[in-house]
């Protein structure tokens, strides 16, 4: 658990690290996207402004695509550019390039598009409430469920929870640079992305057989991603490549913040209905029915994968003996929603954790008692039938109660609230997150990693996983450095490049350290065994002739990991990370305003490689979750579209609570997933604390003063 300094630290602090917009090539054109500004309809006519010389511009549209006009995704249903039909605001119509950015932007804003508009579905709640908007296949998990009527003495509680869109709001907007090499007929892409091999496939799809080779490399720095640079870069790279191919010149597209907010993927809004049957005397939950719905936006793209993770996390850290879970996607006319840290789990954990507190209020047990009674324990089964083999969630739970002094505070706040106009509240939640791809995903992906040992005993690591701020390249190097005992400064991860790095999979799903890091560590151990030597540097020194030498290793799944994709029964995730959290809030009844004061986090993420980097993930994830809980909202009723950080309210230093973080089992053999779990639990913790502060049950996010005002006034009617 050593906190070694980040390799990229100095260059980033001083601004020397190059991000995509800092790249400039000779003869480079600026590119941009022309997109639809209606929610649904058909394009009737496009007219270019008269006062520009059209010959100066490179323009590509659907009819220019030599390959296929479909962005490759788990469900490939979204075109790169429209062929006339508009299903959402922001649907791309054309890519346009010009040597001068200012001229390009004036030209684009002067293009007139005539539409035939149709009635669109924009209201999230309406879309999620009405079954006519369902699309794609529904998913089910049925666990020891039967249709018997539940005994009368069980308390039957029904809730419906809604959560809103959330923008990833990476500080660096999306961008892509494409170069076409006429002599070799190849395309090179440089960009800000999480998944270089997805981008490569997308460019190959749009270009068809017209180019010999596509190579994708990430820019030196990637200015945050959080899932937002998982799938949108596929579309952006495809169009940028096509522009470069047509212009025979390099083309760079960098989105404006407004456009990045308006047209890229967001977190899925959700509607989660839970019906539970609880023994009011013992507090044991006997059975639940859950209807889990996500608004996918206009196209399905990767939404089924989000839905899958969502339904596998919606039971949370609880033992629900009998349960029936159904998952549905709904279609609206907003840009397709996509990946965002947590990937369906934050919505799930928000719903189940809120429901547990609602049950506690209904049957007169405390939130603490409800959790003590129903927490997942060793040998309990999750809805997928996966048996809990470790008591780590319980350990997190007990530890968080201890360090937060939860029980005393809960009582103190009850008393405080009776005596004061301003209020206090404390919220308690449990959470988990499955590491790596869901079900058989990692088995199919078969990640491969490569290492090169040089004559000077430098170690080069080749993986497709990007450094987007999470500290992966330092942490991965540290894992190899520990195993090979070669100094950290001599172990380096190369910038991912699909021509040089093997496909170790996308940088998603809390899998980089857990899956790819474990593979590297295993490979390093194999090298030691193969060379029959502990001092690798010494061995290299004495056997110069055989170096540089490359080593590779592919992922081997545990043969016992069986998962049935149809019934969703089996090992959904080989390892879960666990967490328990307590949040303390102040509530100002005059302003209807929540202020998060303190947040205690206890997590089991297995072995901790770099404590500072791990802490950074928790601090950042919690803060992002607090933004989702309290202020962040893209579509506000009666309010124009969100176009910038002025009206998309992100947490600042002033919103940062005091945060206490502890990791347990830090010396375990396996380093489990970390990136996403801190996003999963803070929102319901704040929401549950607000119940203590106000006595009001609110089932929707975000908890803005407007919503709290509305709910308090409604409940007093």
């Amino acid at each position, binding site marked *: 658990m050593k906190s070694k300094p*980040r390799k990229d630290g100095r260059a980033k*602090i*001083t*601004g020397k690290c190059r991000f995509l917009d800092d790249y400039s090539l000779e003869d480079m054109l600026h590119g941009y996207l022309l997109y639809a500004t209606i929610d649904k309809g058909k394009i009737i006519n496009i007219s270019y402004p008269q006062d520009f010389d059209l010959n100066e511009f490179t323009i590509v549209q659907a009819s220019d695509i030599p390959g296929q006009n479909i962005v490759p995704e788990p469900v490939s249903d979204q075109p790169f550019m429209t062929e006339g039909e508009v299903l959402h605001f922001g649907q791309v119509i054309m890519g346009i390039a010009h040597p001068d950015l200012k001229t390009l932007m004036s030209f684009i804003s002067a293009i007139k598009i005539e539409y035939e508009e149709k009635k669109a579905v924009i209201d999230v709640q309406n879309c999620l409430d009405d079954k006519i908007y369902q699309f794609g296949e529904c998913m089910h998990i049925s666990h020891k469920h039967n249709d018997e009527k539940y005994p009368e003495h069980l308390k039957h509680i029904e809730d419906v929870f809604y959560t809103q869109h959330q923008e990833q709001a990476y*500080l660096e907007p999306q961008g892509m640079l494409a170069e076409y090499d006429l002599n070799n007929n190849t395309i090179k892409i440089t960009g800000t992305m999480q998944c270089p091999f997805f981008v490569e496939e997308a460019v190959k799809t749009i270009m068809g057989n017209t180019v010999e080779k596509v190579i994708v490399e990430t820019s030196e720095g990637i200015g945050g991603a959080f899932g937002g640079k998982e799938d949108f870069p596929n579309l952006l790279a495809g169009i940028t490549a096509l522009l470069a191919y047509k212009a025979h010149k390099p083309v760079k597209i960098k989105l404006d913040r407004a456009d990045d907010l308006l047209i890229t993927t967001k977190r899925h809004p959700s509607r989660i209905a839970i019906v539970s049957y609880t023994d009011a005397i013992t507090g044991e939950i006997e059975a639940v029915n859950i209807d889990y719905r996500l608004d996918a936006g206009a196209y399905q793209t990767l939404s089924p994968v989000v839905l899958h993770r969502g339904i596998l996390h919606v039971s949370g850290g609880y033992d629900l003996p009998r349960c029936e879970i159904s998952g549905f996607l709904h279609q609206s006319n907003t840009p397709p929603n996509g990946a965002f840290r947590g990937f369906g789990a934050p919505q799930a954990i928000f719903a189940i954790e809120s429901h547990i507190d609602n049950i506690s209020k209904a049957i007169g047990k405390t939130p603490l008692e409800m959790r003590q009674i129903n927490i997942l324990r060793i040998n309990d089964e999750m809805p997928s039938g996966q048996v809990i083999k470790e008591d780590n969630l319980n350990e997190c739970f007990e530890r968080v109660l201890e360090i937060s002094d939860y029980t005393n505070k809960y009582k103190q706040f009850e008393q405080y609230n009776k005596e004061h106009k301003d209020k206090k509240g404390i919220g308690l939640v449990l959470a988990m997150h499955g590491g790596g791809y869901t079900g058989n995903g990692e088995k199919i992906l078969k990640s491969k990693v490569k290492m090169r040992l040089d004559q000077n005993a430098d170690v080069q690591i080749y993986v497709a996983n990007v450094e987007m701020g999470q500290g992966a390249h330092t942490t991965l190097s540290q894992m190899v450095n520990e195993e090979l005992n070669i100094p950290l400064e001599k172990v380096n991860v190369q910038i991912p490049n699909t021509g040089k790095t093997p496909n170790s999979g996308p940088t998603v799903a809390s899998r980089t350290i857990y899956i790819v890091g474990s593979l590297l560590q295993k490979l390093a151990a194999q090298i030691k065994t193969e060379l029959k030597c502990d001092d690798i540097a010494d061995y290299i020194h004495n056997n110069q002739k055989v170096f540089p030498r490359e080593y590779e290793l592919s992922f081997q799944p545990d043969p016992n990991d069986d998962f049935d994709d149809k019934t969703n029964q089996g090992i959904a995730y080989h390892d879960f990370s666990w967490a328990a959290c307590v949040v303390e809030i102040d509530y100002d009844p005059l302003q209807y305003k929540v202020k998060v004061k303190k947040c205690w986090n206890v997590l089991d993420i297995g072995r901790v490689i770099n404590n500072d980097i791990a*802490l950074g993930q928790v601090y950042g994830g919690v803060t992002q979750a607090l933004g989702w809980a309290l202020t962040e909202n893209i579509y506000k009723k009666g309010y124009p579209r969100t176009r*910038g950080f002025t009206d998309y309210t992100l947490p600042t230093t002033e919103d940062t609570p005091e945060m206490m973080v502890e990791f347990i089992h830090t010396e375990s053999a396996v380093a489990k997933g970390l990136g996403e779990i801190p996003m999963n639990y803070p929102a319901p913790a704040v929401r549950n604390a607000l119940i203590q502060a106000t006595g009001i049950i609110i089932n929707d996010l975000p908890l803005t003063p407007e919503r709290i005002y509305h709910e308090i006034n409604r409940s007093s009617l």
Partner: protein
Amino acid sequence: MIINFHLNGKVTSIDTDPMRRLLDVLREDYKLTSVKESCGEGECGACAVLLNNVPVTSCLINIIQVDGGNVITAEGISETPLGKLIADSYEETNAVQCGFCFPGFLVTSYHYLNNDPDIDEDKIKWALSGNICRCTGYRKIIDAVQLACRKLADQELDHESI
């Protein structure tokens, strides 16, 4: 129009459209790419520079406004003793993540430490509240500034301004 100003300690002049954003002039004409564009509307502080020793968002400043003035970017700050001390503190606390917002934080924390290097957390939070970071949750940034305050108190820095 010819604009004369000091940039990172040197006298410079540029003949350009007076309404161009300072951000664009610094990035395009001077290749000072520590100055980042993120929100483009003065909310996030990624493009922060010092103008006459006050942090400003360079996306909201027209180049004509700096005529006769003094501009310092993260490139300039990181060459000063105080700038190095702050960068060291950020590095030692492992505060940085994606790094896109960090040059802006360096500028604002330099201004804070140069004027009122108080270790008080609330004061630091207020001073940095114009810089948005989406990765770190700010905890380690605050730790880093506090560390820099302690370091500064422990040593006599040569306060020569650039």
